[in-house]
């Protein structure tokens, strides 16, 4: 049950809602969540904030609100990962994605597949042979994560991320004999 005090309490919440809604919504959108679902998650975020307004003593509820939004996002992503382990993630709610989907490529013949698989194995082995720190940086870099995001995940500095990536790429180039 949502409990509302009316008066200043209610006005305070509405002010927070109007001031912070856009930022919360854009946070969800920044994580590749479709427009409508981003609104739904934003509403959930503010509902939880509303239920806990009594606990907020600070004048600025943003840290609390941000934690709620983050928890909701992580739960949502984790639930999807658990449901679809191993399956590629495709957002079926995003019409742009569906219409932009390229036609399936022609299947390579057996000899080409053999060549491809041999090349993939070579790359896999090369990545696996990297020192752990470089391998972890490379794996996250392949996922298109930014330097600062990789640094946060691994708990290292951005400079360390850049350095490890530079070393990893050089090692791979040497092992694979090509410019990747």
């Amino acid at each position: 049950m949502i409990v509302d005090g009316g008066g200043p309490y209610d006005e305070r919440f509405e002010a927070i809602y109007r001031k912070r809604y856009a930022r919360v919504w854009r946070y969800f959108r920044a994580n590749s969540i479709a427009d409508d679902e981003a609104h739904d998650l934003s509403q959930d975020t503010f509902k939880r904030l509303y239920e806990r307004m009594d606990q907020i003593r600070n004048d600025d509820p943003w840290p609390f609100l941000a934690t709620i939004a983050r928890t909701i996002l992580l739960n949502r992503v984790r639930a999807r990962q658990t449901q679809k382990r191993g399956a590629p993630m495709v957002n079926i709610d995003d019409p742009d994605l569906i219409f932009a989907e390229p036609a399936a490529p022609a299947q390579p013949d057996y000899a080409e597949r053999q060549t491809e698989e041999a090349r993939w194995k070579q790359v896999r082995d090369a990545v696996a042979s990297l020192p752990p720190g470089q391998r972890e940086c490379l794996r996250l870099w392949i996922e298109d994560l930014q330097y600062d995001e990789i640094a946060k995940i691994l708990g290292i500095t951005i400079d360390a991320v850049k350095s490890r990536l530079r070393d990893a790429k050089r090692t791979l180039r040497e092992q694979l004999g090509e410019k990747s």
Partner: protein
Amino acid sequence: MMNQPDWNSVRDSLIADDRAKLGEPPTVDELLAYERGELSKEHAERVQQLLIAYPDLARAYATPFPPDDEALPDDVIDRQWNAFRAVNRPVSRSNARVLQFWRGVAAIAAAVAIVFGAMLWQTHTELLRPHVLPEAAILTPDGRRGLAEQPSAVTPTGDSVLFVVSLIGPTDYETYRLELVRGDSHTRVWSSDPLRATSSYSFNVEIPSRVLPPGTYQVIAYGLRGNAQEEVATYTVDVRRRPAP
């Protein structure tokens, strides 16, 4: 030469291997504890490996909040706010307190009603059963008991005492009223409603023994006519101590 689809294939293969080896993604609590540096070294390393195996979760974990510099159009905010209010219709906090208070009162009232109902039922059942009246003490008006003029004496032996108050003398009042007062202090112990005279011109008054500690009492009979009342007779009674069992 590795192209993007090749890299994607390698990537998918690495992820599949990691997930098969490591299992389920970390929980949100684990992630938050990892961020705060509260996990053991081994646990933190495992969470780190799981984040690499679940890159979407890693991305969600690492994505910073966008800067607070770009608003949505007012009509979008209005629409969302109205939707929020419609779905989460608030109950006034003060009303909620009142609601809780009345819920508590209702619960207490229900409990009391059950207790009193049980007592009433018990009493009702008790009344339906025949029971023997206590021994009656027949009271004669003062001044009518002969030369000795000893007060009537009664010794309570049960839960109550029965006084039979006989009217002697004028009996033409519309109604009568009886009072029981303590003889020493003249404090009123009990007073009746107006009573119509019976055919025998007597009233049977059953008095609980516990309101009759040993001592001298007077029963006073008043005759009522309109708004006026007149003392008709007094009956002095000596209540004696109950004998030890």
